[in-house]
């Protein structure tokens, strides 16, 4: 599904967060959103998810304005994985993933819902933990459960807010590979906010570099993640090293000139 964002302006009270953001995302592609803290990544995701109403601008899903969808329709099209709090009550892994079927459920759980959930649990390799309480899992397992929940929505668009935050190396890679595989296999359009620029460049087809609510650069990872762009956006000297698979970014130190 094609996502088009046009002239998006958003402010919380008088604080501007997004100022004229424009982007397009195609099915089968991961668009990585990178930028410093407070550059508007999360707000952009919330707007596309239909949770925040932008003051100006519009978002189109396959040409249809987002406001024309009902919340239920949106929840069947968009799988949004926010950086939520952990639940205060013990829900099992299976129940947590089953929540992803909420957009399709009445009160009773159907056979198809159960099948979808168990297939996804197998896919993310958590079938053994199906009846364990979510809160007892490790951070990496939890994040996989949450991803499974989003996939159970059978969405056409994935919105992922820092899915690898607080994960160890192996879980980061496993999770991102899973996301990539699903995106390619099902032709999903994914918008993913990431802090780790190396992961972002490895797993994204395109990178959107945000600075203070505006798009600073947009394009393929090697075009966008250049030392000069990164210095101007993050105020950090970065060394870019060629590698057989592409390149590797090594942050060196905060640049002096950026302390204006």
């Amino acid at each position: 599904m094609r996502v088009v964002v046009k002239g998006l302006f958003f402010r919380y009270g008088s604080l501007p967060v997004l100022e004229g953001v424009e982007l397009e995302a195609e099915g089968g592609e991961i668009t990585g959103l990178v930028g410093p803290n407070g550059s508007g990544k999360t707000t952009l995701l919330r707007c596309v998810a239909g949770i925040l109403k932008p003051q100006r601008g519009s978002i189109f899903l396959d040409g249809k304005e987002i406001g024309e969808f009902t919340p239920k329709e949106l929840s069947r099209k968009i799988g949004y994985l926010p950086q939520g709090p952990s639940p205060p009550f013990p829900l099992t892994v299976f129940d947590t993933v089953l929540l992803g079927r909420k957009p399709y459920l009445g009160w009773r759980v159907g056979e198809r819902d159960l099948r979808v959930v168990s297939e996804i649990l197998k896919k993310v390799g958590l079938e053994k933990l199906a009846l364990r309480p979510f809160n007892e899992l490790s951070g990496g397992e939890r994040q996989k459960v949450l991803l499974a929940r989003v996939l159970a929505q059978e969405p056409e668009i994935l919105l992922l807010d820092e899915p690898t935050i607080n994960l160890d190396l192996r879980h980061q890679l496993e999770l991102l590979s899973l996301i990539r595989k699903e995106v390619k296999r099902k032709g999903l359009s994914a918008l993913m906010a990431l802090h780790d620029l190396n992961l972002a460049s490895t797993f994204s087809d395109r990178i959107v570099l945000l600075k203070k609510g505006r798009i600073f650069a947009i394009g393929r990872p090697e075009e966008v993640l250049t030392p000069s762009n990164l210095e101007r956006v993050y105020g950090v000297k970065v060394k870019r090293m060629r590698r057989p698979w592409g390149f590797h970014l090594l942050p060196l130190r905060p640049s002096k000139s950026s302390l204006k």
Partner: protein
Amino acid sequence: MGIEKVYLRYTRSKLLLILILSLLLFFLSLLALSVGAVNLSPGRVWRAFFSRIFPLSSDHLSEVIVWELRLPRILLALSAGAGLALAGAVCQGLLRNPLASPYTLGVSSAAGFGASLGLVLGLGVYGGEYLVVINAFLFALLSTFLVWGLSIKKGMSSESIILAGIAVMYLFSSLTSILQYMAEPRALQGVVFWLMGGLYHATWKRFFPVFFITLFCFPPLLRYSWDLNALAMGDETAKGLGVNVGRVRGVGLVLFSLLTAGIVSFTGTIGFIGLVSPHLARMLVGGDHRFVLPCSCLMGALLLLASDTLARSLIAPTEIPVGAVTSLLGIPFFLHLLMKKRREFWP
């Protein structure tokens, strides 16, 4: 295939638990019918009980004791316990906070103040027999709408709502103590008894409103089970799943107010049930609200009926305040479970 079967078996085992609890509750009710201040043999109790259903002869005394004293009291205990527990489970779910309860949100103490106003000063919007009840009801509603108003204000975290509830609780209890200070001895006694809460004045007339309020609130709240489950993962996730968070929280808290105000105004403040029953239920059936809500009701009913039966029979004919028994009975049990299940869900 495998996981689905395991999950289905798991949900079935939860249904079985709920069934077992219901049976337990039924037998406890039968037991409660046959114990009390006047020692009636089970035979006389049953004769008296069936005498109003079948053409059976029975002596007048046992018939009055069974039908006018014990039966309404048992049924009041069941419906009030179930209702308070339901209220507790719902507000904990809506506010995502395991500390929320009718008590910690200030509802009980607001009702207490309303009742005291009627008892001490005779003030109220409507006089007569129900002056105290109506006063309590109105103030309980007032305080929950206060909490509700705070909860829809942007940026109000659930912790701040609980804090505000506790502040409201202190506000009304200090107002109540001022009233107590001014009160005549007879009125003061009335206030003290009301605040302790109890079912000693149970009649059919008091039972029916409590029963119907609980019955009326249960189905719509149960329908919100999935929304409550989604809310547990945070407002944003819930919204992303298509839940109208504002409406669920609004309707939920209105029903919560109705439930709490309706019950507390007839029984006085019975704390603890609303806080603990949902936790006991979650320890049994997990966090899925489809099961938590009914199971909380059963737990609350069980807890209140057991406490009230002990309260009226332990040192009969003297009665111990039921609130005290509930706490004495429930808290050690609760603490035991809390220590045993050292998981991070229970604070």
